């Protein structure tokens, strides 16, 4: 399995690098969180710190958010949907390795490419901008990376669990878009959860969306206690188990309905 992962990863990194224009567009789409940051900064400029959040907090939060968005968001539902409609799923099914691993390495390969561009950019910006700073110990960094990695894995499983709906309807991508829209709000991508109404923030920490965005960002900003970090990992773990189960069920039941169209 290690060899297969290595080979698949190498191929998908190669695919990620194949089109320079696509890569540029991806990196440019990182600007969205920075626009949100500009809104908050103008608010801080007018009324002073908002709920205890200063300029440096917003700058560090959204800069980290831009990197996390590209490294943890999964678009697999749409890729899977396209594969089901075109029949390209058949080639994945013919291989003696579960399509789950093929899709996972596809996602990982693209993330490696994007990280290769975004991380150096972030490092350079932290050196240039005094407001962009992360006061973390090496252990804190490791915990933040572990949180982001588990958030990425949860997002992949969530996307794949939704993708199996594609065996029953052609609307899996649209259904996931609805779910993803809700997630964008509750993940902390649009606004830090600490700035949302308390009841919304309380719900958000129990939902799966925070795991890949708000949770690692709050660790990066040193805003969580040990207990809160443990709770965040527990929530992520429970959702991973839940979506893994849903995926396996959807896969086992859906595969019988696969029509292998195209060809």
């Amino acid at each position: 399995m290690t060899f297969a992962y290595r080979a698949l990863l190498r191929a998908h990194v190669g695919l990620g690098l194949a089109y320079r224009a696509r890569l540029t567009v991806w990196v440019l789409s990182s600007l969205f969180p920075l626009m949100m940051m500009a809104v908050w900064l103008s608010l801080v400029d007018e009324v002073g710190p908002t709920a205890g959040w200063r300029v440096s907090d917003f700058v560090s939060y959204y800069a980290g958010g831009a990197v996390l968005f590209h490294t943890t968001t999964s678009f697999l539902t749409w890729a899977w949907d396209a594969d089901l409609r075109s029949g390209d799923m058949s080639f994945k099914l013919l291989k003696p390795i579960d399509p789950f691993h093929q899709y996972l390495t596809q996602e990982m390969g693209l993330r490696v490419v994007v990280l290769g561009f975004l991380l150096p950019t972030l490092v350079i910006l932290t050196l240039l901008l005094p407001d962009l700073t992360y006061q973390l110990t090496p252990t804190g960094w490791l915990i933040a990376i572990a949180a982001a990695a588990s958030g990425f894995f949860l997002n992949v499983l969530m996307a794949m669990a939704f993708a199996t709906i594609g065996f029953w309807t052609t609307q899996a991508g649209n259904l996931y878009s609805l779910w993803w829209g809700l997630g964008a709000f509750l993940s902390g991508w649009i606004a830090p959860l600490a700035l949302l109404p308390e009841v919304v923030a309380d719900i958000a920490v129990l939902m799966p969306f925070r795991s890949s965005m708000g949770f690692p960002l709050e660790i990066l900003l040193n805003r969580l206690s040990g207990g809160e970090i443990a709770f965040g990992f527990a929530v992520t773990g429970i959702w991973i188990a839940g979506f893994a189960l849903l995926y396996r069920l959807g896969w086992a039941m859906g595969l019988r309905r696969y029509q292998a169209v195209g060809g």
Partner: protein
Amino acid sequence: MARQNGDRAVVVEDLVKHFRVHRREAGVAAGVKSLLRRKYADVRAVAGVSFSIDRGEMVGFLGPNGAGKTTTLKCLSGLLYPTSGRATVMGFTPHERKTDFLRSFTLVMGQRNQLFWDLPAMETFLVNQAIYRIPPAEFGNTLTELVDLLGLGPYLDKPVRNLSLGERMRAELAAALLHRPAVLFLDEPTLGLDVTGAAAVRSFLADYNVRTGATVLLTSHYMIDVTALTRRVIVIDQGQIRFDGDLQVLADKTAPHRVIKVTLSSAVARADLAGYGEVEATDGLTAVLRVSRTHTKDVAARLLAELPVEDIAIEDPPIEEVIRQVFAQE
């Protein structure tokens, strides 16, 4: 002597596959109507098919478009879950999709592409090496052999999207055969290839069968593929098998006539030629006659004795015509 199951690579018993398909007429009104009230139809793609293939045998699988060939191949490859019936390939039940089963066969679909589109074909080969767990030495030997036989050398480092159809098809075959599968399901493997490319693929497949003893089930609309590679054919139409046996027997049974082609040293009128058989074509100096199989020898002798014949050839009707007649009779 009855064949044992152990001798058989593929066994299919009463295989049935139905699809439920959404139907709607063309136009905006029909689109809105279908939004409110969906109409579905059951398509009986495979309707009770049974056959078996011995290990090492090459079999042609023939039928018109929509006959059920590809659906049968997809059932045998584990892509489709059969509605009912039973199939085994190398002793495995395909839809169980066991890893050893997936390593034992390959499915090549002429109009589809398993290669990474934006990368050189070599990347797909390396991924397949890892996925199929091919030891490095064996991979090196097989790759060298395939590159050599398929003439892939100049194309290995070109992105697949930049290859011509023929080059891509050869790379596709190499990717599909790197793990040396014991069973090959080939669905139109020469589709779209030029004469040279198609001949190269046919020659390679024949050679592969001889060297490895692989079992091959081949569908093709090009009869030259079938006649060059297989003796036995299975003819399927409307999801049911119409014939299973020797290609020559099918020709004899379906087309009880042969074709005599004559070249004459001086012109002979069509009316005079008609006395020997059905005149398919003539320009006075050459003629193509259809005569019944039982009278072929007598007619040929009469032609030689009675007309100024320079050259004469007796041929079976083209296999395309035979197959056309099989389907026309249904």
